[in-house]
Each structure stands twice: as C-alpha cells, then as structure tokens.
C-alpha cells in the first residue's frame, strides 16, 4: 500500500506491505527492503532495518502527525488518499500565507502598529500579542500593503485567528 506524507515540506512516499508476517518497504524505484517494525507501547514504535535500530514516537491529531525520531521532533501531514489538497497547499502556501497574518498563539492584542493602506516592509512589526506574560511581535513576512485590520487593542485572539490581511505589492 502506498502512503505519502508531507514532512518538512517534502512529500515522502513509501510503499509498505506485509508478506508472510514480515513487512517490506519500497521507496521510489528501489528494491523492497525488509523492515522489522513493532508497536512497543502506545505512541512508540521500534524499527530495525538491516540491523540498525530506530525508536519512533508518533501521535496524531487530526491530519497532523507529531513525531520524534533519533532525537529530532517533527510535525507533519498525512494524506488519506482522498485529501491531497493539503499537500498542494503545503508546498505553495508560503506567499499566500504571508499575506494572511494570523495570531500564532492564543493571547491578547496589546498594540497594532500599522494602519489600513500603509505599505510595510518585510519583518516590520504589525502588531504585538501578549501571551504567557511575554510580548510577541507579529511581523510581516513579505513586503506588502495593509488591506484589512480585523482586530483591535485588547482583543483576545485564538490561534490561527486572522489579524491583518495584506496585499501583495503590484511590482512583486
């Protein structure tokens, strides 16, 4: 069976199958390789490939996988087969995303530093959100013009809440 995951913005495709009680994986045009994989306890997997041992921690929240392998954490997306949109989004969203300025975490708007119509440069502070007692500057990811401001001082915002919409500059 083929599985594709979007890991660190790279689609990783593996073909995994069970034959006579053993698992085999194939990548791209490669040969099938035996993989000794075991569920060790909830969220923990042990993989032996040609004698090399890996311990993988894995949990899932909706489409999102949280994982740790060989001392590195990653968050990545899985494809169920019928929802490949996430993948396209995943790779092409950068510019579009940078124009939609969101609250990166729950918190309180304590300052808005720009006005509608104002041109902003990359890394310019757009607003300040306070969370966990720290002030966090929300910066522009790209040079642009402020199209809409959707929050005001004192607003409590949820994660992923859109704060400000930007518009790409004509000359970009």
């Amino acid at each position: 069976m083929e599985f594709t995951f979007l890991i660190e913005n790279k689609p990783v495709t593996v073909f995994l199958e069970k034959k006579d009680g053993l698992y085999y994986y194939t990548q791209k045009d490669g040969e099938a390789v035996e993989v000794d994989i075991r569920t060790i306890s909830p969220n923990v997997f042990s993989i032996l490939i040609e004698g090399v041992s890996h311990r993988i921690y894995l949990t899932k929240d909706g489409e999102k996988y949280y994982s740790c392998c060989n001392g590195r954490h990653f968050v990545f997306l899985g494809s169920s087969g019928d929802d490949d949109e996430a993948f396209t989004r995943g790779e092409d969203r950068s510019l579009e995303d940078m124009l939609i300025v969101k609250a990166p975490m729950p918190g309180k708007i304590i300052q808005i530093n720009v006005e509608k119509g104002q041109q902003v440069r990359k890394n310019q502070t757009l607003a300040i959100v306070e969370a966990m007692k720290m002030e966090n500057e929300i910066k522009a990811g790209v040079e642009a013009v402020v199209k809409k401001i959707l929050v005001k001082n004192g607003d409590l915002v949820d994660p992923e809440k859109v704060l400000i919409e930007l518009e790409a500059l004509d000359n970009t």
Partner: protein
Amino acid sequence: MFQKILIANRGEIAVRIIRACRELEITTVAVYSEADRDSLHVQVADEAVCIGPAPAQDSYLAMDRIIETAKKTGAEAVHPGYGFLAENPEFARLCEDSEIVFIGPASQSMELVGDKIRSRQTMEKADIPIIPGMKEVHKNIADYANEAKKIGYPVMIKASAGGGGKGMRIAYNADELMPGLEAGKREAKSAFGNDSVYLEKYIEEPRHVEVQILADNFGNTVHLFERECSIQRRHQKIIEESPSVALDPDLRYIMGETALKVVKAAGYNNAGTVEFLLDKNRNFYFLEVNARLQVEHPVTELVTGIDLVHQQLHVAAGEKLALKQSDLKQKGHAIECRIYAEDPDNQFLPSSGRVLYLKEPHGPGVRHDCGIFSGCEVPIYYDPILAKLIVWAGDRDMAIRRMSEALNDYVILGIKTTLDFLKDVFAHPEFKNGSTTTAFISRYFDDWSERSGSEENRKIVAIAAAYDSLQNVHIRTGKHGEQELETSPWLTLGKWRMGRG
C-alpha cells in the same frame, strides 16, 4: 520544623518544593487556579485548594486568598517559589502580619533589594562595584533621555521591580529609547504590577555570573559558589552552569566574598542570589539580588550536594544555618537547560495546548524537574516553562555530552518546545569551548531553523506512520481488524482502549 506549609506556586517549582517538604515530613497545601485543576502540583500535594480563576492576578497573585487559605488549612508557612509573589514585599509583609512564616527574606530587606535603585545606592555605599546608571526612577519620561545621554548609549532599560528578563530592553541610540521605554513599562506593569523602569549602562557581551547565598535569621551566611547564566535569549536565561569557565579560584573567592558583603549590606536572610556582570577584562559589577529561589538553583545543588529548598525550610523555621563555608566545595560540573513551550522555529512564540506524549529523560547524572505529563494541558496564562533538565558529570565536557544524550532521550509531542533548539546549542563548538557570553545566542542562533536532519529520518518516520495507517486501515475495513484488536495486549492498557465499544 513546620508541620504544614502552603506552596503559592504552580508547575515544576511547586512540584519540586512539595518533594522537598515530603522528605522533611512536612504536609503540603497546593493552591490552584481554575485552569490548573488537573495540574501536577495539585496531584502531588497532600491538600489542594482552588483560589480563583485562571488569570494570575485572580489566583496565584491574589494575596488575600492565599493568606486566607493558609489560615484555613492551618499552614504555618508559605513558600512562594519563583515568579508570582516570590519577590513581592507586600505579600511578605502580609504573611508577617498574619503570623505566617514567609519562606524567603523579611519584607524589609526584600523591599530594599527589590528596588533596583535603592539597592544600587546601598551597594555603592558598601563599596560594591556597580554599573553606571540612574540613581532614581523618574516620573517624567523625557528625563530618561537626559539620563541616557549622561550614561552613554547603549543603555539598558530595566524594570525596577523586575526579574526574569521581563521589561528589559536595550536602546542603542536615542531613537530606540522611547519605544523601548514604552514596551518595558507595559511588560513591567503586566508582569509585576509596577511600571517603574530605570536605565543602566549596557555592557556589551558580558557574562552573567551569579552567586548563590544562604543566610539564617541570626546573621550567619555562606555562599555556594557561582552559576554562569550567560546563555540568554531576550534577556531570559535558557542555560545555566556551575562552575563558570570564566572564573579562576581567585576571582571565585573574591566574587563569593563580595556576594556575602552584599548580603550583609542588605540585611538579607534565607536563600538568595547575587547577580553580577563580568566584562571581558574580568571586572565584575553588582547587578541585583534575586530575593528568591532561582529557576537555576539545581546546578548549585548538584555541584555542592546541598539541597537549597531544605535549607530554605530550615532557615525559615528559625534554625541556625548548619553549613560552614569551609565545608562547602564544588565538585564536578552541572548544567541546566530550561524547556519552554515556545516555537524556536517561529520567533519563539509561545505554544500552548495539550502535551499528547511525554517521554522523560533518565540516566545516571540526569535530573528532570518537571511540571508536565502525558496528556496535560499547557495553559496560556502563565510562564511557558515546562520543565528543567539538569545533568551532573565529572567535568564540563562530559556534562555537555550527557546533556546532549539526555535531550536525545527526551520527547514532547503535541506542542512546540525548545528541545531541538537546545540540542543544537549544546552541539555548537563555541559552546563546547566555553565562549559563552550573553551575545552567544544572538550571534550564533539568530537565524536558527528546525533541521530535523536527514532524509533517513524522514524515511523512518514515514515508515512508522505508514505502519500505523496500515493497521488502522485493517481495522476500518474490518479485514483482520476486530480480531487483531481483540488479541492485542493493549486492550488491557487502561480505560481508553476499553472504551472502544
């Protein structure tokens, strides 16, 4: 010794204090906000009382509620931990007035050292070297510009009541002064309920070296040597160690003696920390006294073998200090790093939410002071510190190796943390060779971004996720699904799996 005390804090430090109390056979009372019913400190305490809604000002900073709870539960003393009310002289006084022992310095000396300006004045008189800066807080914001000019840029804006890097800003020139003052005042207000700020000469690329002290109520004092806390981000310490690579025995001796002079000048009692800046030419300047147990106290515990919380409790209970300076020695090397709920790949923005999985590191020489658990919720209301990882080894090189391996053995899934960032810091050659000034992080890690590493890692993770999916697919199609599940030993692992039907 006390029979029962109240711990006016949460998270890893509350848990650590409760542990120390158990060892001294003291009953503990936890207080908690409505957001913290399920928190670890509530679970491990003997008693637990809800003292108000989630925002700290309505719970962990609600002095009256805490005093009232102490009285009602029969707690003889209150341990404030760090943060919250730890350095609030008003609270210390309220305790004194209510005949509840405040486990920390007397309100009077706390007031003195807590007021950065007054303490600078006191120390100047006692011949302690201090950094050039303002001698008083000004009402008029315009006066700050004059002071800054007098001191000479760059200047550091600091919260008068501050600590933990909150309210701190650097202004390299006059243009940066006003925005910095505003931000600093706002943060100071929010963090300490007091927006007083002052200016100091900013010493570039110094080391931050502090000395742990203990003082009883009878004027007996000892110091427990230094901690180097130069590895900071946004003026917040993230890695601390003891001993400091920058000190030799002579300088260590002088700084220790100076710290004790500071303590005497301030009439200070209980545990405290005297902070110094150490410049490139090995000049050191008094910064401030932290009138509390520090976040980084474990590194001192590991090199001296002294349990600082036990000592705090003994001293607060009116016992004489049982330690003599000549008995105290540093042995080996200890390093601590702080695990924050922050996303280092995204400007270190706070990350709240649920910890879906936690694997705590273990092993010889590894200590993990932890406030979280698998399944806990990290609320947005409080400081984002989750845990502290502390290692001890015979020397610094091995301590760094041990820390790296402990970090490799440490898993937090579900929220973003600083774990991988810290791994890269410890792997950096300039950290290893001890070039650890306060400029370290901004110099070498300004553009850090998550590198999960190799293609190999991505492949392995993909295989695991595919295997996981494959099993779920089986279940969904019912092919071998139910049967596999029934024979799975995991069905017996707790109610979650039993709830399937």
